[in-house]
Every structure is written in C-alpha cells, then in structure tokens.
C-alpha cells in the first residue's frame, strides 16, 4: 500500500542551474520507495538524481549523498538535526538543496 506523498523541493544558490533553472518543484513520490521501509532522504536524493537531474550528476551527488558544498534543509532546519539520509519523508515536507556561496 504505497500511497503517494507530496514533497516541495527548492533548489537555490546555484543548484537550480542543474535543474533547468527551476527553483521550486512539487513532486509526488511513493511513501515507500523501498518497501517495507518508508521513503527516506537517501531514497529521495536517488530519486531526484534519476528523475530530475539533467546531466553531470557529480555536481549534485557524491556516493549516495549530496556532494560537499550543498546544504540540505528539511522544513527550514539543517538536515543534520533531522537525521540526514535516514530522515523519513513526510507528506508536504519542504526540502531545500542550497549551494554554499563563496563570492563577495
């Protein structure tokens, strides 16, 4: 019984350039991408890589997580406080991928 959950994605700080310059996107994904476990951030990142990323995936992922220099926010909180890759995605979660900037 894998229902669909809605996730609000935001790409910012330059990460949007990897996604056709789209800054916000609402996606629907199965609540259990890898049954029987609920969909986690690890599943979501892989799903984004496979379904949304246009090319040069090494600019977004590194191993099974995001590359260094991309900060991940779950509902406006650093994902490190939420369990990182193990965080279980909930319906209507807002996930932000933001590139750290160095210019000035």
């Amino acid at each position: 019984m894998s229902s669909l959950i809605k996730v609000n994605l935001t790409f910012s700080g330059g990460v949007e350039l990897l996604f056709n310059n789209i800054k916000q996107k609402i996606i629907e994904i199965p609540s259990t991408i890898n049954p029987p476990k609920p969909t986690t951030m690890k599943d979501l990142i892989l799903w984004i890589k496979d379904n949304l990323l246009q090319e040069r995936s090494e600019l977004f992922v590194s191993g099974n997580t995001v590359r260094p220099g991309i900060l991940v926010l779950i509902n406006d909180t650093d994902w490190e406080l939420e369990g990182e890759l193990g965080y279980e995605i909930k319906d209507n979660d807002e996930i932000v991928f933001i590139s750290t900037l160095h210019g000035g």
Partner: protein
Amino acid sequence: KLRNDNKLSLEEYLRYGRQLILPGFGISGQLKIKNKSILIVGAGGLGAPAAIYLAAAGVGNLGIIDYDSVESSNLQRQIIHNESRIGLSKAQSAKMTIQGLNPLCECVAYDLLLDSSNALDIIKKYDIVVDATDNAATRYLINDACVLTGKPLVSGSALRMDGQLAVYNYRGGPCYRCIFSKPPPPETILNCDDGGVLGVVTGVIGCLQALQAIKIAADMNDDGISQSLLIFSANSNPLFRSIKLRSKKPDCVICSNNPTITTLQDYVQFCGSGALDKSPSVKLL
C-alpha cells in the same frame, strides 16, 4: 594602541546621537563598540558596505585587508571606492573613504594577501572578524584562524542574485567546518568575477554583516545568531529565509575538544584552488 575610554567626547555625543537615544543600545552600547576592533577581510562588494557602516556606527578600530587594486569593473558594487581611486590599493582606498566619513575611527589598511603565514598574527589583534572574501580557500583559512585565536566570525557571501549570512565560532555555536567539513569540488565554485553578481546583493549582505558585527561588539541579545544561516534570494519571494543550523560538531577537526588540526594548513591545496586563481571552469575555456 586600542583606546579604552570610559566616556564619550562632546563630538561623539553629537555624531552618535541617534544611537545614544536608541533603546537597547545607548551610551553603554556606544562605548562597547568604541572599544572594539573589527577586522574586515576583503574590501570588495561585501567589505565595502560592511566597512562603511561599521566606521559610521563608531567602531573604534577597523582593519581592512585586500591585496587587490581598484578597477572600473569593481565600481558596480564596491561602493567604498570611486573613479579617482582606480589603480589604487583597495585597502588604502577603503581607508580613505572611512577617514572622510568618520575621522574618529582608527583604520589600518593591510595591502596584502591573507594566508597561512600571516593570518594568525593579524587576526589575534582584533576582537571580531568579518569574512568578506570571494573564494573557498580563504574562507577555510579565516575560519581556522578564528577558531585557533577564539574570535567570532561574521561570514557573508554573494553570487548572482543570491546571498548568505552566518555567524560562526560564537557563543558555543558551530564553526564553518562544522557545517562544511569538506570543501566543494573546485569546478562547482564560482566567484563574482566569473559568475556575475547584481551589485546591490553584495550591498544587502555586507550591511547585514556590519549589523551582526555591531551586535556582537555591543554584546546585544544574540537570539540564536550563533546557529542560524540567513539565505537571501533577490528574485524570489520571500526574499529571505532563516535556517536553523546544526550545533558544533563533537568531532569537528578544528573546533572540537580533541582537534586534529592545531595549526593553519595549505588551504589552496585543500580546496583545489585559491584566492589568486580564476575559477577552474573558466581556466578550462
């Protein structure tokens, strides 16, 4: 060298009147910032408004570091310089503007490239450091030097339409390495020269850096500034987003109780590019 006055002169009463009547700041806040020294690394898009507003507010001592000279292409955002300064050292030009705006501010211009050989000696002389640089290697260098010398770090950055602001190494909060333990691949990093920037985006972030430095200097209510990241996106709605950051990492290589890094490193090697490089993506062209 630092002044340690416990009172304000008549000239200071007149000049800073709007801050002296400000609830939550007042004479005690003014005296605190008068007796503080702040180092601004970079006299570019971020450093320009940061230095101007810190000097205007009455910070007693400012240091400004920049190894570069003023060019016409800087004036779209580096508003502490002007046409007559083209070719001059940015640090000197910044100092000239500050002296014209507020002669009570003692300003030291460092016309040099901050690196592992000089960073500790300079930074240890200041109370607060403002990172207004434009490359990853110098950002790690400044972070490590601030941790090793125990100085709060007000970090700002800007590129294209986006900006970011955070305070590191302050009141038990995380350092830059706690958040970004590995540097990004060099091919993903752009500076403003190569990626472009809307000038006023650096204006907004530079002003906010001055604000956070003033709040630290005046010991104002921190309300979580030590553990949050402000994200500015000039063409999004809302313009700003505040993020709660993680705490200090218990195993941070530099700011934890058992650091593995105890001296400054080779940051150009660590990041794969340095302050003097063009972005790798551009070098490939």
